[in-house]
């Protein structure tokens, strides 16, 4: 009886509406924060930090962004990577062109730039729905990447748009080591995840979900479709934009527009499908899953089939597994890993006396 709700009566509505109303969840959450915020940077090696933990965090942020738009507000987007690109290149230019631009301010400005672009490409959502809109977001995907390549101004005249992120310096301290970059990423992502959670559990989130579930009824109740949808586009793009900036500054360092291609957009979409559509926690689970799966397969496939098959085989095998998993989750558990986690908890709650 380690995990129980019984005996924990919520005396006030304030307590009832906490993120973690159950005490064990709250303790678990803070433990997790402690582990990933303090223990991990102390213990993990460079490979883990650079190749797994940092990208998982960054993709989680992007997935939260897409989840806000697609999972909560119901507007399917196939262009998340393009908004990441906007964020990355905006941050680069703000830092490059404005003397003494503090990193965190640049990050916010990058997010805002992405938000503006997001609103622009979100305008069609006022008139079109479903996969019509998905096609419209493809316009964003192809146009933005094209523009970043074709106009050398964005990349300070480097060839084919490749830029190298400047040093990350906050209050005189330069985040140079993987550990430092990890901690910075962790703090930013954790903070933004909290903000996202707060939005989706209050009236803003209810507006998004109402529009998602039944837009006519949402309007009849008084929600303004335009405002609600555009806000979702803006906030979502802001998150993707910041994720893109972090991608450039704390993850790979050197980025080119083509790196933010349709494939990456799909990957982020897969993260939310597998992690959980309409779940902040699912965004983390999905990102971790999608980052870890190829690494896992890279090691597993040669172990099973031998080395003779070559890299091509592994990458094709990956495609099949990715695609297969998407179909599998859509059929078997459309709410993704987040839902599985919840079911596990419910089982645990009854344990050891299942009724």
């Amino acid at each position: 009886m380690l995990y129980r709700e019984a005996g924990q009566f919520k005396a006030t509505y304030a307590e009832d509406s906490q993120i973690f109303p159950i005490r064990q969840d709250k303790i678990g959450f803070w433990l997790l924060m402690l582990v990933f915020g303090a223990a991990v940077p102390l213990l993990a090696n460079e490979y883990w930090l650079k190749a797994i933990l940092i990208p998982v965090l960054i993709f989680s942020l992007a997935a939260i962004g897409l989840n806000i738009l697609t999972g909560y507000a119901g507007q399917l987007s196939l262009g998340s990577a393009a908004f990441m690109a906007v964020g990355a290149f905006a941050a680069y230019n703000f830092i490059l062109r404005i003397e003494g631009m503090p990193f965190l301010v640049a990050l916010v400005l990058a997010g805002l730039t992405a938000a503006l672009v997001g609103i622009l490409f979100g305008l069609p959502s006022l008139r079109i729905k479903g996969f019509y809109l998905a096609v419209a977001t493809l316009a964003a995907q192809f146009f933005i990447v094209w523009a970043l390549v074709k106009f050398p101004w964005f990349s300070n005249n480097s060839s084919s748009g490749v830029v190298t992120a400047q040093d990350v310096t906050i209050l005189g301290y330069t985040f140079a080591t993987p550990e430092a970059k990890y901690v910075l990423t962790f703090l930013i992502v954790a903070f933004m995840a909290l903000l996202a959670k707060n939005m989706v559990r209050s009236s803003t989130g209810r507006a998004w979900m109402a529009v998602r579930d039944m837009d006519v009824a949402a309007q009849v109740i008084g929600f303004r479709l335009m405002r609600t949808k555009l806000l979702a586009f803006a906030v979502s793009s802001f998150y993707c934009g910041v994720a893109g900036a972090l991608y450039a500054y704390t993850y790979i360092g050197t980025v080119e527009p083509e790196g933010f291609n349709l494939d990456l957009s799909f990957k982020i979409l897969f993260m939310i499908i597998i992690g959980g559509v309409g779940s902040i926690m699912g965004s983390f689970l999905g990102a971790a899953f999608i980052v870890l799966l190829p690494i896992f397969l890279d090691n597993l496939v040669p172990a099973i089939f031998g080395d003779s098959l070559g890299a091509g085989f592994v990458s094709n095998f990956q495609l099949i597994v990715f695609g297969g998993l998407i179909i599998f989750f859509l059929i078997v558990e459309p709410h993704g890993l987040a839902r599985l986690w919840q079911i596990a908890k419910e089982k645990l709650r009854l344990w050891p006396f299942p009724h």
Partner: protein
Amino acid sequence: MARQIGDVIVDLQNISLRFGGVKALTDISFNVKEHEIRSIIGPNGAGKSSMLNVINGVYHPQEGQIFFKGALRPKMEPHEAAEQGIARTFQNIALFKGMTVLDNIMTGRNLKMKCNFLQHALYWGAAQKEEIAHRIKVEEVIEFLEIQDIRKTPVGRLPYGLQKRVELARALAAEPHILLLDEPMAGMNVEEKQDMCRFVLDVNDHYGTTIVLIEHDMGVVMDISDRVVVLDYGKKIGDGVPEDVKNNPEVIKAYLGTSH
């Protein structure tokens, strides 16, 4: 009855509505008075739902005028109607399927909530206070409609009758002046119907809410309505107190005579 029926609050004049070649409404005029229970009856496809949709701006008629509280109402969008205090339920339940009962009802209060998304993001001070204040209001509605024990249930899992009740709760949470109910008792068993009847009468009685009701059960309609308007093939064929309507030969022919 203790309540006082007031002035005309909604006045529809010569409304015509077409969908392509289909004439849903043809030259219909009728009004709704403050605090009354006004019923719309008629066979399926008569244009009843369309009428409600015209009142709260979901459909825009090609011809005719709508006066709201005495003033001519230009093309009004649904959310503007909501801002004017018009709430409604739908014939085919239009709850937000992915949300819990509580969240669904909370959406009903959105127009009264003033915090913006940045305050929500921080969920501190004003935003939290506001959320809790409105939660208290919503709990009153929950108690009134006796749905306490399903608060946290996702609406998709509820049986039909309860879903209808939750939809009413969502509409009531807005504290509307005018409540449009589209077949709130359809598909219910006798007991559920009685409950729903009681709720409608209570709302009307306690809060003085004006009610426009579409209902097929003649017993119920004749029982609780102040006035009834009868539609058939998009035309108005009768209008008046239940007694008159019941005896109107055209109505009997078109509607009461059939198997409805």
